[in-house]
């Protein structure tokens, strides 16, 4: 008896590591039963690797112009063809993943905690605080996100940072609503009542009892949101309000390829495929995460 207790007290980090390993293994086992989710994860993993190793992988420079070589059709030399300035489209797409991943991560890191904090506090405290926070959320929610992003980008000047801030501004309300709905369910459960009975402070209840129950659905929602973020970022790029040329932003690439679409389809289609694949992968991963993050989940 005492042996067990001293062992668990003595090597807490070791046990923790073993646990993380075990839950990781469980997650992988669950993932392997879902081929579609697995596909999404692989595509995402590839994207991240490509983003990190872009300078090593890309066959050409993404920005150096080579006018004699302009608008070449896809060939062995240029797998995705070249654009109107003779730049290799494949290389631009590879460097573009950096911008895309950067945007998605930045927006998620801003939007997730803010949305969750607003939602959990509103749901848990209730009363006037809830009313004020949720009306504010409703107001932000009623703004068309692209229009707000447009006006914001116009006010602060076009650029990747502005695009990130603008998308984040309109991205948190759905997360807040979700977190609030979860909180309303959790705060009336018996385990929260029991926590009150043994004197857990409101902050403790909020962070140790309610937040862990909200995190999975928030993560799933965020992952599904990422597809939307990519599309909004691409739309801003298309309108010239995202990353500025010559940065190889996918939306901006479609925009510039539009003029040549009829004769040189690859200039617009290649970045289109990249956007499509990426947002599809995020959607699939979001779906798979929902199943993996629930410890009770067993596929019937």
């Amino acid at each position: 008896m005492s042996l067990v207790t001293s062992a668990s007290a003595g090597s807490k980090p070791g046990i923790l590591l073993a646990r993380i390993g075990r839950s990781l293994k469980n997650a992988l086992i669950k993932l392997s039963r879902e081929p579609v989710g697995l596909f999404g994860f692989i595509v995402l993993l590839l994207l991240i690797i490509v983003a990190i190793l872009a300078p090593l992988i890309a066959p050409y420079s993404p920005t150096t112009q080579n006018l004699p070589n302009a608008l070449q059709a896809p060939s062995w030399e240029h797998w995705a063809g070249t654009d109107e300035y003779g730049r290799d489209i494949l290389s631009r797409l590879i460097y573009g993943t950096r911008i895309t991943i950067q945007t998605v991560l930045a927006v998620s890191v801003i939007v997730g905690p803010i949305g969750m904090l607003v939602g959990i506090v509103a749901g848990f405290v209730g009363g006037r605080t809830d009313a004020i926070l949720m009306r504010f959320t409703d107001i932000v929610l009623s703004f068309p996100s692209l229009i707000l992003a447009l006006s914001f980008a116009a006010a602060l000047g076009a650029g990747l940072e502005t695009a990130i801030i603008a998308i984040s501004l309109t991205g948190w309300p759905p997360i807040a609503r979700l977190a609030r709905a979860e909180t309303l369910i959790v705060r009336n459960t018996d385990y929260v009542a029991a926590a009150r009975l043994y004197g857990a402070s409101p902050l403790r209840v909020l962070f140790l009892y309610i937040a862990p129950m909200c995190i999975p659905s928030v993560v799933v929602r965020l992952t599904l949101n990422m597809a939307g973020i990519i599309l909004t970022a691409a739309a801003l790029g298309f309108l010239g309000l995202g990353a500025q040329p010559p940065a190889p932003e996918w939306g901006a690439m479609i925009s510039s390829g539009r003029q040549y679409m009829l004769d040189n389809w690859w200039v617009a289609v290649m970045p289109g495929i990249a956007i499509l694949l990426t947002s599809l992968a995020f959607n699939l991963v979001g779906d798979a995460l929902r199943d993996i993050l629930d410890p009770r989940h067993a596929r019937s």
Partner: protein
Amino acid sequence: MIEVSNLSVSFGSGEARRQVVKGVSFVVGKGETLGIVGESGCGKSTVLRSLAGLDRHWEGEIRLAGNAVDRERSREQLKLAQMVFQDPYGSIHPRHRIERVLAEPARAMKIGDGWSRVAPSLEQVGLPANFAERFPHELSGGQRQRVAIARALMLEPEILLLDEPTSALDVSVQAEVLNLLSDLREERNLTYVLVSHDLSVIAHMCDRVLVMKDGAFVDELDKGALEQGQTHHPYSKQLFKASFL
């Protein structure tokens, strides 16, 4: 141990105001088990939740271990009485391992780190110490209820409030849990208030029973009367008839 005088509980306000508990008074001695029976919605759980400090709509006076307690309990007052809930599937946090479930009371109260007492407390309710590693969904209903009892005892309260502790369990497991509760009462000289609509559970556990109807007590039966099925009120007679047929 417990003195309740003129306890009333009302919910809502204005037109919708409804009095759920109507000025009840009772006393429970140290080491005694008091049962409260009645049909669903008669207010018995509300009485218990007011005793525990979960419900704050009550008026009147509640004294635990000789001290009058407030609607908003202090930590010292919370330590006097703990509660075991009806549904063991809903009363344990689904994302906490059993060791965290059992360590939380001490950690929340800031008395010790709590982890060291997990194994002994599991043993005390008849579960192996390696259950500490598990998640609640890896336990059966009866095992969970044992964990819930162990958690309620972590703060070493003198009073345990039991809200239909067995109604969500199989019949065979019910008996095990009830026996565990009886043993614990003897070991630690605990005082129980047991709420149930199951008269056989009440008869097995309680020294004294209060029969509740529409927010008021209509009958009081001691152990002898319980065994012989003596009743003093038509409603309790009806209740006994329905359950012992």
